[in-house]
C-alpha cells in the first residue's frame, strides 16, 4: 500500500518559499480508500479527544454608540467622596462602564489632583464581594417590598405621634443635601431626635483651618497635619513648598505622643505622654505671657523662634487633644498675631447635633426609643464600652441600619439595608473650604441598595425617590439661577460647583471651652487610644488593600498592637512581641506589645478598628478591640492603665523588621542652606566602568526623582500602584512569610538615639537600573531593557527562577509564590485595569513605571505626530502622591522637570556604589534645624 499523502507525482521540486506548490490542491491519486478512512478516523479522534468547549456568549455591537465611548479608551468622570464629613473631589477612570481607578480632581481645593490611601482604596470597597447584597430582617434576607411592608405602617405611627420616640443616628455628613433632608425629617417629625456619633472623626474641640503655606515656623501639639484628616493634601503640598524654598525654609516642631507623619517630618520632635503634653502646652502659654525663662532649652529656643516669626508662625493642636491644649494653642496664636494669617478658627461643627451616643443610649435604656434609624457607622462595635450600646439597642422595637456591610450593628438591628457605594449613586459634598461638589455615579448599583438620600426620601414619603432627582431637585431649589441647566452640567463635569465660597469667621467655638486646671503630670502609665491610620475606627476593616498596607512607622499589617517606648518597656519588663493584658477601668484586652522608638515614655498607645467579629472574610478576627478600653468620659484614654504580661513570642505580620539603617544610610540628609549631602558614603565612590556597551536611546529615557523632603510617608503611592496595576493582596499568613506584593514600598528607619530617634522614610519602587543586575541573570530573557530604558518584565516568558530577585540589591521584585490573584469573584474581575496583565502563579513582577500609561501617551503623541510632552505620563504613584514628592519624565529632555531635579545638589542614587546607575534617584531630605537647639 502506498501510504504517501504528499503530492509525490506533482510536477516540479518542492520549494520552501512556495506555500502552494503546484499540484497541492489536487487529490493524490494513490490515496487509497482505506488510508483515507484511517486519516479521517484519526482526525475525528483527535478533534474529539481535545475536548474543547467553546464558551457560550453573545457579542453584540452597540446599536447606538454611547457618546464619547470608544471601546478600549478609558473615560474620566468627576465625582466626590464624603470622607469624615469632608468632601474630596475625585476623578474616576471608567473602562467600558466600570470604574477602575480613583484619582484626585485637580480642580478641587482639598484634593488638588491628588489623593489619599482611603480615596484609592474606595475602589476595592465598591467591588468587595463581602458587601451587603440584600436587605436583612433579623438576619434573614428580605425584599425591598418586604421592608416597605413593615416600614410604611411604622411611618404612619410616627406621623400620629409627631415622631416621638424616633431617633436618627448619623456620622459626620459632608452632603448639604443630606443635611437638608435630615432637617426636613426633623421638621416633619418635630419630636424626633438626631444624634451624632463618629469614632474616627469626633466633634473637634476647636475647629481650625491652618494655612501652612503662610507659616514659617510651625508647632504641632500632636496634630496630624498630614494624616487622614480633611486637609492632608493641601497641608502636604504647602509644607513641601515651604521646605523647598531656598531662602527661609519652613521649620516644623512636633510635640506628640505616638509618632505620626507630622513627627517624621519635623526638624525637632519631642515625645510626651498625654498629661505631659498638656502641661507642656500650658507652660508654654505661661512663659509666653510672663516672659519668664523656660525651664528647658528646647522650649526656650522654640519660644524664641515663634516670637521671631510673629504672624508667620502657627501652633496647631491635635484633634484628639483635650480642649485645654486647644485653648493654649489659641492663646499663643492670639498673642503672636497668627489668627487670620496662618490659622482661621471656624465656627464649629454647628451642622452636627449636640446630642451624642450617650443621650441616645440613655433614652434607649429608659425604653423611650420606639424606632432607631442608623445611617452608616457601626455603633454596636465602635462605641465606648461603658455605654453597652448593643444591650440598649435590644430594647428598641424597630431598629434599622443602612450600611455598606452587614457589620456588628446590622447583626443586632431588626433591619439592615444595603447602602449604595458613593460610586454607585448621586450625592453632593462640601469641602473643608466650603466649596461644593456634585458626586455622580460611575456605575449602576451592583446590588439592590439605596443611598442615604433615597432612604430618607422614602421616610419622608417624597417623590421623586431616585438619587439624581433628589440631588438635582435640591440644587435647583438651593441655587436659584436663570440658566440652571448649564450650571448643573458644568458643576457635574468639573466636579466643583462654581459657587462663591463662604469663608468662616475667626471666632473660635471654644471661646467657651473650659480651660481646665493646670494638669499634673501623671505618674502612672497612661493609655492612649487613637483611630488606626488605615482602618480608622474599623470602618475600613473589610478593605483588604488597607489591611495589607503597612502602617506608618510600625509597618504592621492586618493587626494592631500596644505601642510602647523602649524605656517604658524596660521599666515594665516587657519585650517586643510579648502578649499583655491591658487593664483600664475594669476592662481588659489582650494584645501584643510593639516596642516603638519615638513613642512617648510612660504611655501605651492602642489603635482602634481591630477585633471585629462581623467584618466579612477580610476583617473579622484580626487584632484586638481597643473600644473595649474606651469609656465615654475618656474616649482617647487616660492615666491608670495596668499591664500584665501573659505570654510572649507573638509573630507580627510586618513588612519591615529592621529599624536601623545599619550605617548604610539609604536615606540621606542635608541641612537647609547647606546643599552638600550630609550623610554620604564617601567610602564607596561610584564607579562607572562596565564591560558591556552602553545603552543608546533615540527617544525618551524615562526616569524618576523622589524628593525625600516632601515625602510624608503616607503610602498613598503604594495603594495607588496596587489599584493601577492589579496587584493582589496576599493575606496575613503570607505577609508573615514576607511575600507581600507591593511594587512600591515605603521604608522607614529610626536614626540615632533609640530613645529620641529621628524618623525617616523612603519610598522604594523599581530603580530601572541602566546596568540592571536582574537582566544579566535571567536565563530566559524574561526581564529585559527596553528602548526607552525601562527594565521590563515579560510575564509569559518568565519561568520563575527568582534569580533576578536575588540579584536585585533593592529587593523590589515581587514573586507570585502561590496563586495570589482572585479570579473567581465576579465583582473583582470588574475592578481590574484592562491594560495590565493579571499575573499567574510562578512569575516575577515589579514596578513598570506604569508602562501602560507610557504606551497610551506614546500612541497619542504618535497620532498627533509630536513628542510626548513633559508631564504627560504620570505613573500612578506620582499621581496619587499628596506631597508631589514623586516626579517622572524624560531625563534626556533638559527642559523636563525630572531632568531639572536630577541636577539638584541633593540628588543621589540609592546604592550608587554598585554601579547599577538607577533611573530612580532621590533628593536628600532637607532638614532645617534651629541652630539654638542643634
Amino acid at each position, binding site marked *: 500500500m502506498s501510504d504517501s499523502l504528499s503530492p509525490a507525482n506533482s510536477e516540479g521540486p518542492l520549494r520552501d518559499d512556495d506555500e502552494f506548490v503546484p499540484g497541492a490542491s489536487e487529490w493524490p491519486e494513490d490515496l487509497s480508500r482505506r488510508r483515507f478512512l484511517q486519516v479521517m478516523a484519526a482526525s475525528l479522534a483527535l478533534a474529539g479527544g481535545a475536548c474543547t468547549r467553546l464558551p457560550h456568549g453573545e457579542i453584540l455591537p452597540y446599536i447606538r454608540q454611547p457618546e464619547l465611548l470608544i471601546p478600549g479608551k478609558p473615560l474620566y468622570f468627576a465625582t466626590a467622596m464624603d470622607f469624615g464629613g469632608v468632601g474630596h473631589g475625585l476623578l474616576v477612570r471608567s473602562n467600558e462602564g466600570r470604574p477602575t481607578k480613583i484619582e484626585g480632581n485637580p480642580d478641587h481645593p482639598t484634593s488638588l489632583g491628588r489623593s489619599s490611601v482611603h480615596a484609592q482604596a474606595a475602589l476595592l470597597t465598591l467591588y468587595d464581594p463581602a458587601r451587603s447584597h440584600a436587605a436583612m430582617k433579623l438576619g434573614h434576607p428580605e425584599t425591598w417590598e418586604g421592608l416597605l411592608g413593615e416600614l410604611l405602617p411604622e411611618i404612619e405611627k410616627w406621623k400620629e405621634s409627631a415622631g416621638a420616640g424616633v431617633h436618627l443616628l448619623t456620622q459626620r455628613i459632608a452632603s448639604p443635601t443630606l443635611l437638608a433632608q435630615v432637617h426636613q425629617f426633623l421638621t416633619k417629625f418635630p419630636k424626633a431626635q438626631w444624634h451624632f456619633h463618629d469614632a474616627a472623626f469626633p466633634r473637634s474641640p476647636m475647629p481650625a483651618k491652618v494655612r501652612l503655606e503662610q507659616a514659617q515656623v510651625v508647632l504641632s501639639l500632636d496634630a496630624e497635619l498630614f494624616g487622614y484628616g480633611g486637609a492632608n493634601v493641601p497641608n502636604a503640598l504647602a509644607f513641601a513648598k515651604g521646605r523647598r524654598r531656598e531662602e527661609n525654609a519652613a521649620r516644623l516642631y512636633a510635640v506628640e505622643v505616638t509618632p505620626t507623619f507630622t513627627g517624621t517630618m519635623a526638624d525637632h520632635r519631642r515625645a510626651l505622654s498625654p498629661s505631659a503634653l498638656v502641661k507642656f502646652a500650658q507652660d508654654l502659654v505661661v512663659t509666653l505671657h510672663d516672659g519668664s525663662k523656660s525651664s528647658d532649652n528646647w522650649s526656650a529656643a522654640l519660644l524664641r523662634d515663634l516670637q521671631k516669626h510673629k504672624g508667620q508662625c502657627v501652633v496647631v493642636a491635635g484633634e484628639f487633644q483635650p480642649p485645654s491644649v486647644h485653648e493654649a494653642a489659641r492663646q499663643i496664636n492670639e498673642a503672636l498675631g497668627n489668627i487670620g494669617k496662618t490659622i482661621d478658627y471656624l465656627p464649629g461643627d454647628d451642622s452636627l447635633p449636640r446630642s451624642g451616643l450617650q443621650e441616645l443610649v440613655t433614652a434607649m435604656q429608659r425604653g423611650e426609643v420606639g424606632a432607631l434609624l442608623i445611617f452608616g457607622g457601626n455603633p454596636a462595635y465602635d462605641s465606648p464600652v461603658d455605654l453597652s450600646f448593643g444591650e440598649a439597642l435590644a430594647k428598641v422595637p424597630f431598629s434599622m441600619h443602612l450600611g455598606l456591610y452587614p457589620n456588628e450593628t446590622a447583626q443586632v438591628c431588626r433591619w439592615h439595608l444595603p447602602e449604595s457605594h458613593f460610586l454607585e449613586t448621586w450625592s453632593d459634598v462640601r469641602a473643608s473650604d466650603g466649596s461644593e461638589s456634585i458626586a455622580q455615579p460611575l456605575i449602576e448599583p451592583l446590588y439592590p441598595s439605596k443611598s442615604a438620600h433615597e432612604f430618607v426620601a422614602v421616610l419622608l414619603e417624597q417623590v421623586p425617590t431616585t438619587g439624581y432627582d433628589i440631588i438635582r431637585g435640591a440644587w435647583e431649589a438651593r441655587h436659584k439661577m436663570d440658566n440652571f441647566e448649564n450650571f448643573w452640567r458644568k458643576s457635574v463635569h468639573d466636579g466643583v460647583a462654581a459657587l462663591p465660597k463662604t469663608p468662616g469667621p475667626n471666632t473660635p467655638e471654644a471661646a467657651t471651652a473650659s480651660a481646665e486646671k493646670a494638669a499634673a503630670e501623671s505618674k502612672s502609665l497612661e493609655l492612649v487610644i487613637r483611630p488606626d491610620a488605615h482602618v480608622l475606627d474599623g470602618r475600613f476593616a473589610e478593605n483588604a488593600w488597607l489591611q495589607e498596607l503597612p502602617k506608618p512607622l510600625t509597618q504592621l499589617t492586618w493587626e494592631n498592637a500596644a505601642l510602647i517606648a523602649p524605656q517604658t518597656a524596660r521599666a515594665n519588663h516587657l519585650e517586643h512581641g510579648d502578649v499583655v493584658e491591658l487593664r483600664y477601668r475594669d476592662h481588659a484586652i489582650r494584645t501584643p506589645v510593639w516596642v516603638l522608638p519615638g513613642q512617648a515614655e510612660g504611655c501605651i498607645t492602642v489603635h482602634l478598628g481591630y477585633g471585629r467579629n462581623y467584618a466579612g472574610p477580610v476583617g473579622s478576627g484580626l487584632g484586638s478591640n481597643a473600644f473595649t478600653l474606651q469609656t465615654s468620659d475618656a474616649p482617647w484614654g487616660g492615666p491608670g492603665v495596668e499591664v500584665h504580661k501573659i505570654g510572649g513570642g507573638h509573630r507580627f505580620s510586618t513588612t*519591615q*523588621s529592621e529599624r536601623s539603617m545599619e550605617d*548604610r544610610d539609604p536615606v540621606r540628609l542635608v541641612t537647609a542652606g547647606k546643599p552638600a549631602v550630609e550623610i554620604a558614603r564617601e567610602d564607596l565612590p561610584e564607579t562607572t566602568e562596565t564591560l558591556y556597551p552602553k545603552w543608546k536611546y533615540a527617544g525618551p529615557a524615562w526616569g524618576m526623582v523622589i524628593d525625600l523632603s516632601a515625602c510624608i510617608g503616607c503610602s498613598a503611592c503604594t495603594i495607588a500602584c496596587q489599584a493601577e496595576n492589579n496587584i493582589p493582596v496576599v493575606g496575613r499568613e503570607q505577609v508573615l512569610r514576607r511575600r507581600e506584593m507591593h511594587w512600591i514600598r515605603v521604608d522607614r528607619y529610626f536614626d540615632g538615639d533609640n530613645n529620641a530617634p529621628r524618623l525617616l522614610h523612603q519610598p522604594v519602587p523599581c530603580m530601572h537600573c541602566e546596568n540592571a543586575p536582574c537582566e544579566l541573570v535571567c536565563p530566559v530573557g524574561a526581564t529585559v531593557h527596553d528602548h526607552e530604558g525601562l527594565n521590563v518584565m515579560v510575564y509569559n516568558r518568565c519561568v520563575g527562577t*527568582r*534569580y533576578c530577585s536575588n540579584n536585585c540589591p533593592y529587593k523590589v521584585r515581587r514573586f507570585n*509564590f*502561590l496563586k495570589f490573584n482572585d479570579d473567581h469573584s465576579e465583582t473583582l474581575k470588574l475592578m481590574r485595569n484592562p491594560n495590565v496583565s493579571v499575573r499567574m502563579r510562578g*512569575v516575577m513582577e515589579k514596578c513598570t513605571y506604569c508602562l501602560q500609561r507610557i504606551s497610551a501617551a506614546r500612541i497619542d503623541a504618535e497620532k498627533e505626530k509630536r513628542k510626548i510632552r513633559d508631564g504627560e505620563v504620570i505613573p500612578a504613584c506620582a499621581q496619587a502622591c499628596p506631597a508631589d514628592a514623586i516626579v517622572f519624565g524624560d531625563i534626556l529632555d533638559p527642559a523636563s522637570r525630572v531632568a531639572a531635579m536630577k541636577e539638584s545638589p541633593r540628588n543621589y542614587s*540609592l546604592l550608587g556604589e554598585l554601579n547599577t546607575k538607577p533611573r530612580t534617584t532621590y533628593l536628600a531630605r532637607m532638614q532645617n534645624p534651629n541652630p539654638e537647639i542643634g
Partner: protein
Amino acid sequence: MPTTVQTCETLSERLSAVVLKRPTKLGWFTCLAISFTGVLMLNVAISWLLLRGVGVWGINEPVAWGFAIVNFVWWIGIGHAGTFISAILLLLHQHWRTSINRFTEAMTLFAVACAALFPLLHLGRPWVFYFLLPYPDTMRLWPQWRSPLVWDVFAVSTYFTVSLVYWYIGLVPDLATMRDRATRRWIKVLYGIGALGWRGSAKHWARYEMAYLLLAGLATPLVLSVHSVVSLDFAVAVLPGWHSTIFPPYFVAGAIFSGFAMVLTLLIPFRKIYKLEDVISERHLDLASKVMLATGLMVALGYASEHWMAWYSDEPNEEFLALNRMLGPYWPVWWTTMTCNILVPQLLWWRRIRTSPLPLFIISLLVNVGMWAERYMIVVVSLHRDFLPSSWGKFHGTVWDWATFGGTIGLFFTLMFLFVRLLPMIPIAELRKQTVEEGKEV
C-alpha cells in the same frame, strides 16, 4: 582480617554471588521499604508543590532561594567523588580505586539524579522549563546566555550523560559475567540484553579499554567544570557572600570533600554487611580519608580567604556579612559548618582513625551535615540580609521543604539498594584483570 588468595574464578564467583546466589534478606527488604517510604513522601511533596506552587516552601522575598538550591548544590557535590575516583584516579593509575569505582559511580549517578530534580522543581512554572533550552521556536527566542543558570543546564546535563555512559560502559563486561553465571533463563535474558552481546573477545576488550579511557578523559574536566559552573550561579551575582572570584575552586574542593564523605558513609556499612572487607580494605578507607583531609583543608582555606577578604577589602557590606554569619540570627549554621568541615576532619591526621570504620563513619556523617550547612550558609544566610536593611528577612524551611529533601535521600537510597541487589557493585572484570596483572591478592 584473614586474606585469602583470590583467583579469577573465585572473584567472579564471590562477587557475582552477591547478586545471584545470596538470598534476599529481610534486612534488605526493610532498608528498601524505609527508603521507598521516602520516595513516596517525595511523590506527595512534589504533587503538592505542583498543585499549589513553590510557595509551599519557606522561600520569600529576600530569600528567594532556599532548600531547593541548597540541596541541588549538596547533591551535585556528592556526585563528584564518584567521577573523581573513577576517572581521575584511573588516569593517575591509582589501582586501589578499582574496588570502589563502580559503587561510587552509581552514587554519582543517583546523586546527580536527585540534584537534577531541584532546579526543575524550584521553578515558579516548572512546566515551561524548556525555555532554558536552546530549541528552534517560532518566536525565535533563545536562552539568555549571560545567565549562569543557562550554563548550569548544560553543565549538569552533560555531567549526567557522561556519568551514565561511563558507568554503563564499565558495567558491560560484568553484565556479561552475570549473564553467564545466572541460572534462571529470564535473568540470563535480562543481563544478556544489558551486556550488549559481549563475548570477551580480544577485539571487544581492546575497544572497551579504549572507550573507557576516552570516557575517563572526557569525565575528568567535568569534575572541575560542573561545580565551577554551579558556583558561578552565585559568583556572578552582586550579592555579598556570593560575589566572589574564589568560588569555582572552592566549590570544586568542597564537592570532592563532601563526595568522599558520602563514599565513606555508604561504603563502611556496605562492606560490613556484604562482608567485603578484604576487597574494600582498610587501605581504601585510609586513602579516601586522606583525600577528605586534603580537600577539607582546601575548603578551610576557602573559608579563611572569604573572611580575610571581607576584612581586607574594607567593604562594609562584606564585613557585615562575615560578622552576620558568625553572630547573626543564623549563627548556628556558621558554627556547624566550621566545626564539621574544619575541626572534625583534623582527626584524620591520625592513622588509627583513618583505618577505624566507626569513627570514620561518624566523621563522614558530620562532614555531610557540615557541607549541607555550608550551602545553607551561602544561599540563605547571604540572602537574608543584603544591602538595604528595610528588606531584610528570615527564612525557615517548611514541612514541605524537609519532605522534599528527605524524599530525595529516600530516592537516593532506594536506587542504591536496588543497585547493590541487581548489579555487581564491585567491578568483577577489573578486579580479575588486576589479580592477573599483580598476581596477588587485591
